[in-house]
């Protein structure tokens, strides 16, 4: 096939990263591209020409109105590019601080059956920022990395527990990040499909409508939501409707 077997089941992490890089992030630009300020001071044209940068892009709205040290929102990949060229500083999102992560960790530890409300792309964004924007962090990176690792491990344990409720019709795990879902997708889809077939073969030609309510009577935040033969989706779908 034109698509290798692994990619037919799920996205590769590189593809996930690509998708995530389309999200918005706040930056402090170090250059000014705002043209409007130019109209009133014509005397300063000579000096300003050196510091006036022009950005050429297709959708130049955000880029052409950048003012130095005033925070703007651009897409992540653009922010990373500017960062490489030393033209901006990236503002670290609030959840990616020691305090923010501590709060999340405590929530995770307190509620054994739920996942904390981390943004859907938390793993990918944190990895990218660690690697490429290390100097923009206020807190020391190794501490942040440790906390991210801890979070990851705790959530992984909870996922393994949650799989006990696997049955042939539905499984719901709220607030999982996209990378976590991506890892689980082939496993869960294959097993649920097989369970569905087994279940269906055991039924004579009666209706199966009573089976769907019974599956997990005792769900504690790990209730039931999706179709067994479509892709998994967490309940926190990103606002611009990216397909998960």
């Amino acid at each position, binding site marked *: *096939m*034109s*698509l*290798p*077997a692994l*990619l037919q089941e799920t996205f*590769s992490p*590189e*593809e996930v*990263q*690509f998708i995530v890089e389309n999200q918005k992030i706040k930056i402090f630009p170090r250059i000014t591209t705002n043209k409007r300020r130019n109209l009133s001071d014509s005397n300063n044209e000579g000096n300003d020409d050196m510091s006036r940068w022009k950005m050429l892009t297709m959708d130049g709205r955000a880029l052409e109105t950048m003012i130095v040290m005033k925070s703007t929102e651009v897409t992540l990949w653009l922010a990373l*590019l500017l960062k*490489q060229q030393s033209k901006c500083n990236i503002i670290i999102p609030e959840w990616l601080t020691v305090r923010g992560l501590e709060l999340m960790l405590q929530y995770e530890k307190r509620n054994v059956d739920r996942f904390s409300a981390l943004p859907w792309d938390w793993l990918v964004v944190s990895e990218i920022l660690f690697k490429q924007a290390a100097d923009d962090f206020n807190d020391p990176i190794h501490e942040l990395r440790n906390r991210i690792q801890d979070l990851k491990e705790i959530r992984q344990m909870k996922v393994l527990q949650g799989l006990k409720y696997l049955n042939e019709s539905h499984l719901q795990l709220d607030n999982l990040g996209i990378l976590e879902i991506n890892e689980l997708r082939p496993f869960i889809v294959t097993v649920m499909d097989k369970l569905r077939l087994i279940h269906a073969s055991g039924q004579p030609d009666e209706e199966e409508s009573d089976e769907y309510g019974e599956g997990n009577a005792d769900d504690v935040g790990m209730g039931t939501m999706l179709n067994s033969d479509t892709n998994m989706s967490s309940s926190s779908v990103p606002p611009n409707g990216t397909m998960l």
Partner: protein
Amino acid sequence: MYGDLANKLVIEAKRTAQLNNRGNKTTLPVHNDELVRDIIKEVTQLKRNIEFFKEQEETMNENGEYANSRIMKCQHFVNALCLERNKRCLLGYQKLRSDMLDSLAWENNGMDMLGTVSSEENSNLTHHEQEYLKKYSELLTDMKSGELTDIDLSGSLTPPREIFIDVRVLKDAGEIQTEYGVFNLIKDSQFFVRQSDVERLIQQGFLQKI
């Protein structure tokens, strides 16, 4: 027992599939001509049996002997089932191999197909399979150069990370003309180039991304 040879063929097909799942490159083992020919011989014999039974039934029907007609049919039936089973196993084996040929064509289409078709490695393929591979690759090239020239369908599947990348030259390749200038490819020299230009060369193995 009828169907045993077919079982052997299917087991071999399964082994081939598993061998392929491990490695990245699709390799096809030798086509098991002998086994296939034996199975075909068995199939012809079964077919003769079936025709015999059919004639027998017709003569019986004409003579008005309906007794035990269903029981007689059992033999006919069993032979027909064995025939179907052999056919299915043969087809499955062939389909597996042709699917692997398809993925071979997709993998190789970034590179030169002509070299690989005529090399000794392809002696694992029968004449028909080689024909199939050639025609399929031609089909692919036609498709790609038809309306879809803008998208490189057999290109790299990992999304690009940066615009410009560092590459090292692995083999001597002379001068390469690109949109932005000419590059002289000498072994072990490094270049900082635009990714879209060099992607082709990386796929063909001339350059290595650092």
